[in-house]
């Protein structure tokens, strides 16, 4: 069976400090993988490196994304190949309307893939359909990107954008942070509705809470720049109960 993304022995550093220290992760179509871990383990670095943030230096390893060498692609080409990052802290962009930039994005993605531009009518229909899906007020959809949005609205807007762009692989970077339970449910519903047998998701989270709503096929523990433990969704519950210390202890014993 083909893989969506295959990360092998990934090492990445920023300002000379190594954060990822040989990370391996493979996601197949239709799978949701949760990546959990304590603060400073490298969770957000993983998201940034995959999305192509230029501050990070890749020192070793490979990332195959649906047959392409991901690390060779520019940030925008990764998006055009079907990678999507839902930001932990979505950026506010005054004056740039959500729908305006999404139309440009969608058309540039289509152009890259040799497809025709979307018509204004089809685009607006898509906006209506997808904003309903994530219960995003259509007024918000046409407002400036994230400007003056509440924390929950920002996260919902991330999922709305994801719905609009229909990526092969979505990376949700701590999408649950700062969300109350209702917002969390809406965001998770959006993600679940967008799931197909062809696409996949990496859900990065600190807490097990989100995984009550987005049920993962696999749970991985990221610690000190590596995946140190993988398991089924029950692993998340175990982590919730015992914290991350027992994993540290296990690791120390093994050495």
């Amino acid at each position, binding site marked *: 069976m083909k893989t969506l993304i295959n990360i092998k022995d990934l090492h990445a550093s920023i300002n000379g400090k190594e954060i990822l220290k040989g990370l391996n992760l493979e996601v197949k179509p239709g799978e949701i993988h949760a990546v959990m871990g304590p603060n400073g383990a490298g969770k957000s670095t993983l998201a940034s490196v995959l999305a192509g943030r230029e501050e990070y230096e890749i020192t070793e390893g490979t990332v195959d994304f649906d047959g392409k060498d991901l690390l060779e692609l*520019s940030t925008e080409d990764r998006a055009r190949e079907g990678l999507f990052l839902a930001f932990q802290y979505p950026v506010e*962009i005054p004056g740039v309307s959500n729908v305006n930039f999404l139309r*440009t994005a969608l058309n540039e993605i289509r152009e890259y893939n040799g497809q025709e531009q979307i018509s204004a009518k089809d685009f607006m229909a898509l906006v209506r359909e997808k904003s309903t899906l994530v219960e995003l007020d259509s007024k918000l959809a046409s407002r400036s990107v994230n400007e003056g949005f509440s924390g929950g609205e920002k996260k919902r807007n991330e999922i709305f954008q994801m719905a609009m762009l229909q990526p092969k692989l979505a990376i949700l970077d701590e999408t649950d942070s700062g969300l109350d339970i209702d917002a969390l449910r809406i965001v998770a519903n959006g993600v679940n509705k967008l799931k197909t047998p062809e696409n996949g998701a990496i859900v990065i989270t600190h807490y097990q809470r989100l995984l009550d709503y987005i049920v993962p096929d696999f749970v991985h523990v990221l610690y000190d720049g590596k995946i140190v433990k993988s398991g089924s969704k029950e692993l998340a519950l175990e982590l919730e109960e015992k914290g991350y210390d027992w994993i540290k202890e296990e690791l120390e014993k093994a050495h």
Partner: protein
Amino acid sequence: MNTKLDQFRSKLTPSKVKIDQTLLDQADAYLNGREFPTRRDEFWKYTRLTKISNLEVNVNASIIQSVPEEAIINPNAQKIVFENGVYRKDLSDDIHQVSGIEFKEKGNSNFKFQEDVFYALNYKYSTDAITIDIESKTILKDPIHLIMISTGQGSVSMPRIAINAAKFSESEFIVSTHDVNSQNCLSNVVIEADVHENAKLTINKIQNEKSSNFSVFNERVDQALNSCFTINTLTLNGSWIRNNVRINVKGQNAETHLMGAYVTNENQHLDNHTLIDHLAPNCQSNELYKGVLDGKSTGVFNGKVFVRKDAQKINAFQSNGNVLLSDDATINSKPELEIYADDVKCSHGSTTGQLDEDAVYYLRTRGLSEKSARHLLVAAFIGDVLEKIEDEHVVKYAENALSKRYGWSF
């Protein structure tokens, strides 16, 4: 010994337009023996006048046969066309036909002397002068468009426009500059407006000259009780421009809006000087200028707000924002407040920076190319000013001009 200003004046033709003799004497007295201001003068600190004093001046015959298409901004507007500062009646609309407007060619008389070298030059060497009276209670449906076109080599345009917005009138003027086969021309335009009680006047100024011409714009506006005046200055292109806006708010409960958007590139130089003088209480003024500078271009923003001793309860807001797109672009921004009243609410601010790189990255993660992302952000920055302009034709024109020149999409 002759000063450089004297030498420059010897190249000009004294005005044949009727003007008040006292004013002419005052202009003469002011100019005689005077030198061009230098960078030692605070008012001209960042703008050199050497190139103007060295201009090769020519008197050129008119060449244009029709109004160039690019000079049409609002198709419904009444056009008044000037070529090299001379009124072209043959190309203009018959404004006498419009009810509520009184239009006078060849002369205007209600000027007061302004101690300034460019005002004085305009009085003394004016190429033409017109007066437009908007009669009381007239509400103009469509704007009046003053189209100023430079043609030929070294032409000097010194038109003078007087606008009287009578009580309870409402009107919009568009003033735009263009060029046809021209080089090294100088425009020195004076616009004087009286906004009477309860009148509303808007001036939308669009500067869009492509070639190496020089432009000095001098607007002087007096506002009376309950009046509302707006001036929007959009500098889309032009190699050397100085804008001097002076607004004297003399009546209570007056409202003043100044918006400016400027986009410069290459070796362009743009200097915006504004002055709002609050002489009466209970007024509000609102000023927002935003600019994007690229290449080796240089910009100046100097916005001064005076609040005189008796002008209590003034609400004055001023803001200037700049984005520098290249390491070689420069902006000198100086917001100034001088307050002599004690019960006022005034604020001013100036920001200069680069595009938000986090926003660029965010947009790229959505599939936008770096270029599109930057264009979108720059257009949004300037769009903040454009969206406040009421005349949609003016906004569309500016957006199209910028899209054409820079590929930005709004």
